[in-house]
C-alpha cells in the first residue's frame, strides 16, 4: 500500500513538474534517501552508529569520478568498481570496529570518516584535491541518455524505491528479526545463537554500499565533485536525517531525507537568519517528537483518533 503511494508520488512529480530546479531538488531527496535508508538499517535496526558515513558516500562518488574522467571507464563499470571497493573497505573497517560498542564505535567511524576525507583532499593527482574533479560524464544505457533533469529524477528514484523495497524485505526476514534482537539486547541475542558479530558487519557493509551508490548517482548528477561535499558535517547530516525521520523505520528514513533536503532550500528566505531557524527546527522536532517524525506523526494521528478522556490501551511506550 505504502509503495503504491510512493510510486504514485514519484510518477506524479516526475511527470507533472517541469522546473529543472524542482526536479533536481527532488533528485537530491532521492539520493539522500538512499543514504538515510542504509544508515537507518545500521542505526535503527542493528543499533550501531556511524559518524563517518560520508566517507563511503565520497568513495562511491570519487571512484566513479576518477575512473570515468581519468581512465575513461564506462560509468556502469565504474559503479561496479565502486561497489566492490566500498564493500572491501567496509569489511576492513567493520571487522575490528564492531567489537567495540556505543561511543567507541561512533568514534572509530568518525576516525575513518575523517581519514577518508583527508585522502580525498590529499591524493590530488587522482582526485583533484580541494579544487575538485571536473567533467564527470552523464549516464546512459545504450541509446537512453539520462542527462535531462526528468530522466535522472526517475533513475535516482528507481534506485531509491528499490533500496526501500530491499531493506523492507530484509527486515521482514529472519535476518531482520535477528537484527531487532541484537538491538534490544546483544547479549540475549547472542545467547540465543545469533552470530551477532557477523550480522553487524553485514549490515554495516550494506549501509556503506547504499551510501556508495548514492555517491555514484551524485557524481553523475552534478558532474563536479570536491572534498567539501563529503566532510564530517555531511556525516552528521546523514545521522540527523535518520534520527529526525525516525530510527528503526525505513519510511522514517525517507521522511527524514526529504525534510532535511528540502528544509534548507525553503529557509533561504530567512537569509542571514537561516542557520538560526534551521537549528531551532531541529531542536524543536527532537524535543517534541524524539521517536522521529514518522512514528511521531503516526502517534499523534492515533492519539487524535481515540476518544478524548480515554487512555489508549496498548499505546506504544
Amino acid at each position: 500500500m505504502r509503495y503504491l503511494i510512493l510510486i504514485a508520488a514519484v510518477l506524479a512529480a516526475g511527470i507533472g513538474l517541469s522546473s529543472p530546479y524542482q526536479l533536481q531538488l527532488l533528485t537530491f531527496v532521492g539520493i539522500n534517501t538512499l543514504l538515510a535508508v542504509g544508515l537507518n538499517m545500521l542505526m535503527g535496526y542493528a543499533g550501531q552508529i556511524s559518524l563517518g558515513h560520508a566517507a563511503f558516500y565520497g568513495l562511491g562518488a570519487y571512484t566513479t569520478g576518477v575512473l570515468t574522467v581519468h581512465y575513461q571507464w564506462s560509468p556502469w563499470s565504474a559503479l561496479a568498481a565502486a561497489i566492490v571497493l566500498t564493500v572491501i573497505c567496509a569489511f576492513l573497517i567493520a571487522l575490528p570496529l564492531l567489537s567495540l560498542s556505543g561511543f567507541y564505535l561512533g568514534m572509530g567511524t568518525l576516525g575513518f570518516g575523517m581519514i577518508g576525507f583527508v585522502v580525498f583532499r590529499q591524493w590530488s593527482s587522482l582526485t583533484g584535491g580541494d579544487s575538485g574533479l571536473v567533467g564527470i560524464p552523464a549516464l546512459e544505457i545504450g541509446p537512453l541518455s539520462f542527462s535531462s533533469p526528468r530522466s535522472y529524477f526517475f533513475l535516482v528514484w528507481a534506485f531509491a524505491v528499490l533500496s526501500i523495497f530491499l531493506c523492507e524485505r530484509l527486515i521482514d526476514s529472519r535476518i531482520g528479526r535477528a537484527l531487532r534482537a541484537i538491538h534490544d539486547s546483544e547479549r540475549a541475542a547472542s545467547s540465543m545463537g545469533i552470530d551477532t558479530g557477523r550480522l553487524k558487519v553485514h549490515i554495516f557493509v550494506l549501509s556503506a554500499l547504499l551510501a556508495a551508490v548514492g555517491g555514484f548517482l551524485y557524481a553523475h548528477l552534478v558532474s563536479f565533485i570536491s572534498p567539501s561535499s563529503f566532510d564530517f558535517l555531511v556525516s552528521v547530516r546523514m545521522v540527523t536525517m535518520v534520527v529526525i525521520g525516525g530510527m528503526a523505520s525505513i519510511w522514517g528514513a525517507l521522511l527524514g531525507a526529504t525534510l532535511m533536503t528540502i528544509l534548507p532550500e525553503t529557509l533561504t528566505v530567512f537569509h542571514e537568519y537561516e542557520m538560526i531557524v534551521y537549528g531551532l527546527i531541529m531542536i524543536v522536532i527532537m524535543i517534541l517528537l524524539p521517536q522521529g517524525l514518522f512514528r511521531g506523526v503516526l502517534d499523534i494521528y492515533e492519539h487524535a483518533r481515540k476518544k478524548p478522556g480515554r487512555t489508549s490501551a496498548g499505546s506504544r511506550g
Partner: protein
Amino acid sequence: MKTSGTRMIRALAVAALMVCTVMSGQGWAAKGPYKIGGIFSITGSSSFLGDPEKKSMEMAVEKINAAGGIDGHMLEPVIYDDEGDPTKAVLAANKLTSKDEVIAIVGPSLTPTTLAIIPVVEKTGVPLISCAAGIKITEPVKPLVYKTAQNDVLAVAAIYRHIKAANIKKIGIITVENAFGESGKEQLAAQAPKFGLQILQAETFGAKDTDMTAQLAKIRAAQPEALVCWGTNPGPAVVAKNVVQMNMKIPLYQSHGVASPKFIELAESAAEGILLPTGKILVADQLPETDPQKTVLKGYITEFEKRYSMPVSGFGGYAYDGINLLAAALKGTEGDKKKIAENIGKIKGFVGVTGSFTFSPEDHNGLGPDAFVMVVIKDGKWQLLK
C-alpha cells in the same frame, strides 16, 4: 455538455493566444525588467568574499537603474547564497535559470562552486561572469563563461618579478589547504623556473589552524632567502605573526587573498614589511592622476564606504565590474542571452575596479599584468611600490 464543451474550447483558444503572445517576446508589455542572477558565498567560511560581492552588485544595479536602466529596461537582481557549497551552488544555478529565468549570472565567489555550475549554465545557455580566481574557469575557454577576478597566474608573476629583482634565488612557500591555496601552489611551482627561482621547501596549513610554527621551522631549516605565503584570512595573519615570533628575518610575500584591511587588523604589528600584489583599489589615492583606473576606483570606494560603512577590499570589486561589464554588453540585445555572451567577448579597454578588461576569443578573463601592483605594508598602511 455540448455548451460547456464549446466554452472549454473557447477558453483554451484564448489561453493559447495569450501564451503565444507572451512567448513571442518581451514586446507585448512595457519594457520588462532584465533579471540578473547572483550567486555568492554570503555566509559560510568564505563570506568575506561573498558579502562585499553581494553588496557591490546591489550597489551597481541601483546605480544603473537610477540612470534609467539599459535600453529602458530596469535591472532586477536575484541573489542566492551558496554558502561555499558546490551542491547548493548547483541548486541555486538551477533555480536562477529555470524558476527565475535570469538572462545572466554574476558569481559565484569561489572556484569549486563556479566549476560546479558551469554545466548548468552551458545547458541553459545563460552567460556567466564569475568572481573566482581559478584559472580553470576560463582555460580552456568556454563561450558562455567569463571572469573578473585576476588569475593566480598574474599574481604569482607579480610576486616572482619582485623577488627576482631583489636577486633572490631560493624560496620557501607555505599555502592554505583549500582550492585557492592549491591553485596558488600549482602556479608557484609552475612559474618558478621561469624566474630562475628554486622552491626549497613547500608546506601547507589548514584554514583554521592556530599555529604554523612547526611548518615554518621546517622551512627555516632549508634556509630559503624569502618566504611566499598563499592563502586567505585568517591563516596568513597567523603565519605573519609566527614569522615574527620565530625571528625569521627573510622577506615575507603574501598573496592577493589578503588584500583587505582585515589582514592588517589581524596581523597587527607583524604586518609591517610584508609585500604583496593587489588590485589598485587598495592604493587608489597613491596612484598618479594619469592612471586610467583612478576615477573609477575613487567613485566606487566613496560610494561603497558611504553606503555600507565598511572599508572596501578588492573582492567586492569583482562583482561590481561583473555587473558593469554586463550592462555594457546588454545594450541592444533585448535580453538575448547568446548576444549578451558575444557582446561581453567584444569588450575592449573597459576600465573597471579590478583592472582594465579586454576580452578576446582566447581570453575570457581580459586582464593584463597592470591589474596588479606590488605594495608593501608600512605603518599599518598599504604603500605602493614603484
